[in-house]
């Protein structure tokens, strides 16, 4: 059973009308197949048109949709094998960040990502995908291991942000994030990061400082949540839609800004309407990117990654053109 977002209400109305008609037609002789077909077509068109022009704030809703595929779904649909590895060796196992050895076709990789959970029990266990220092330190451990064993690193980023809590601060949340970013930048192996849902601030960057950054079509990536930005700059969280618009959080905007390298299209109506298809497209994209990078030497990979971040927002080219 799909749960509808506010802006999907017209589609919901049509779909419930279709369901009613179907139920009424059960055992009835009246042929309504034409009417059903017409309504279904109308509903599909409506969905396509709504999703073809989502506002940044609507995309934020889609990216946070409770039914959106999360880490475990992508593992199931993309990877042929996955051996989770646990613990940071200092303090604890943090299930907000999952990682381990995985196979993508015939490629062996180190897979790391945020897991938000899918029901109350698992959401609590995974802390809604909000990593703590031990989660980022586990990611560092796994990235360093990947570097030693020549395993490319694939990350799936999906977090509203790193966990804001007293203990997380005490154990060095900032230090853990900084070191995790540093570990990405130090990898002598290919790294492909994908923002699959929410790319929330430092907690996302720590797993996304890769030479190739992909983004699902309706994912969002930002320095602060639209609500957070709105409550600071507009002094009310109600201005979140305006903040989402102003901050440029969508895949299309970020591609233009050179912050991401590739958009992976989602099925019509968003990844949650067909997780398998969404994962299939992502599988192909990650595979293609990895194959290109696997031909490069460790030195060129490091240089590519460094230049990518040193050059983001670089004005020299623009200024040269202007002259």
């Amino acid at each position: 059973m799909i749960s509808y977002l506010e802006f999907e209400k017209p589609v919901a109305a049509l779909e419930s009308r279709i369901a009613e008609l179907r139920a009424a037609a059960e055992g009835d002789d009246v042929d309504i197949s034409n009417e059903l077909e017409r309504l279904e077509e109308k509903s599909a068109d409506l969905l396509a048109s709504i999703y073809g022009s989502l506002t940044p704030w609507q995309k934020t809703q889609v990216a946070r949709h409770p039914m959106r595929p999360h880490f475990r779904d992508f593992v199931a649909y993309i990877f042929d094998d996955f051996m989770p590895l646990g613990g940071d060796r200092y303090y604890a196992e943090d299930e907000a960040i999952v990682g381990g050895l995985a196979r993508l076709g015939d490629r062996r990789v180190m897979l790391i990502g945020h897991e938000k959970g899918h029901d109350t029990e698992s959401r609590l266990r995974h802390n809604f995908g909000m990593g703590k220092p031990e989660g980022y330190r586990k990611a560092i451990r796994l990235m360093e291991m990947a570097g030693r064993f020549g395993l490319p690193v694939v990350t799936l980023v999906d977090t509203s942000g790193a966990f804001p809590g007293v203990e997380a601060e005490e154990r060095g949340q900032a230090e853990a994030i900084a070191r995790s970013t540093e570990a990405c930048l130090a990898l002598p192996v290919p790294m492909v990061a994908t923002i699959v849902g929410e790319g929330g601030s430092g907690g996302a960057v720590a797993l996304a400082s890769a030479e190739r950054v992909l983004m699902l079509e309706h994912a969002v990536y930002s320095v602060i949540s639209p609500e957070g930005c709105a409550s600071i700059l507009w002094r009310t969280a109600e201005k979140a839609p305006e903040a989402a618009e102003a901050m440029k959080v969508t895949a299309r905007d970020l591609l233009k800004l050179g912050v991401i390298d590739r958009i992976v299209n989602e099925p019509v109506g968003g990844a949650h309407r067909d997780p398998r298809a969404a994962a299939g497209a992502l599988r192909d994209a990650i595979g293609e990117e990895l194959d290109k990078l696997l031909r490069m030497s460790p030195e060129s990979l490091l240089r590519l990654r460094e230049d990518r971040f040193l050059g983001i927002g670089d004005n020299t080219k623009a200024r040269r053109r202007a002259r």
Partner: protein
Amino acid sequence: MSWLTQIRKSIPFGRKRESADNLWVKCPNCSEMLFARDYEENLFVCPRCDHHGRVGADTRLAQILDPGYELLPEPSVAEDPLKFRDSKKYADRIKAARAKSPHQDAFQVALGAIEGHKAIVGVQDFTFMGGSMGMAVGQAFVNGAKRALEEECAYIVFTAAGGARMQEGILSLMQMPKATVMTRRLKEAGLPYIVVLTDPTTGGVTASYAMLGDIHIAEPGALIGFAGQRVIQDTIRESLPEGFQRAEYLHKHGMVDMVVERKSLRATLARLLDYLHPAQAA
């Protein structure tokens, strides 16, 4: 600019008394009225309660470096890349900040020496839009690191920021990995990278270059953390522990090497540079 104007500019938070000459400032902590000249001579530390007041970039550089240091030019970066607008245009906010500052943005870099030890010193200036990290700050940090690599000397960075500059959106976030590229290069070149955390250092600045130093020094009482206190309170719904996210608290939890009074800062840095000599590395 007269010496008095300079002092006024560097005391953004000490509220001035409504007198004709504005010679008095009020300690933001204990409200003691201080004679501006005494306050300055005491390095903007309250003689009564030891509160370490916030200081601007020029004041800081003058306090730390031997006379005759060279202020490096500020980087040129894309201005207002998102054409951001909230209740005001970002372009106007930046214009207003520049009108109140001798600088173009919130991070200044100087080449100089500390008791004879050559160093590049970067200072993040809270008085300029809360020290927030945008492209200009990130690029200035990078340029400072590049110069340290050229000069083969230490890089010392004073951090101060409410966090990322939201008006530059994701591009401000991208300054985290960008700065980290350079801290890695300093490490590889065997050059000391020393961070002095000043009040306040929070958000993406803390979660990148502020926490990647060989040495972390914090000024007494400085607020240092990743998440904002209100955000944490909203999440855990209980009151925060005493001294939470203050310099002494971070020292206790192993995140900084030492908490150093401002009056001992210059000598401490010089002593460190005497130990961490670049030539001995690699």
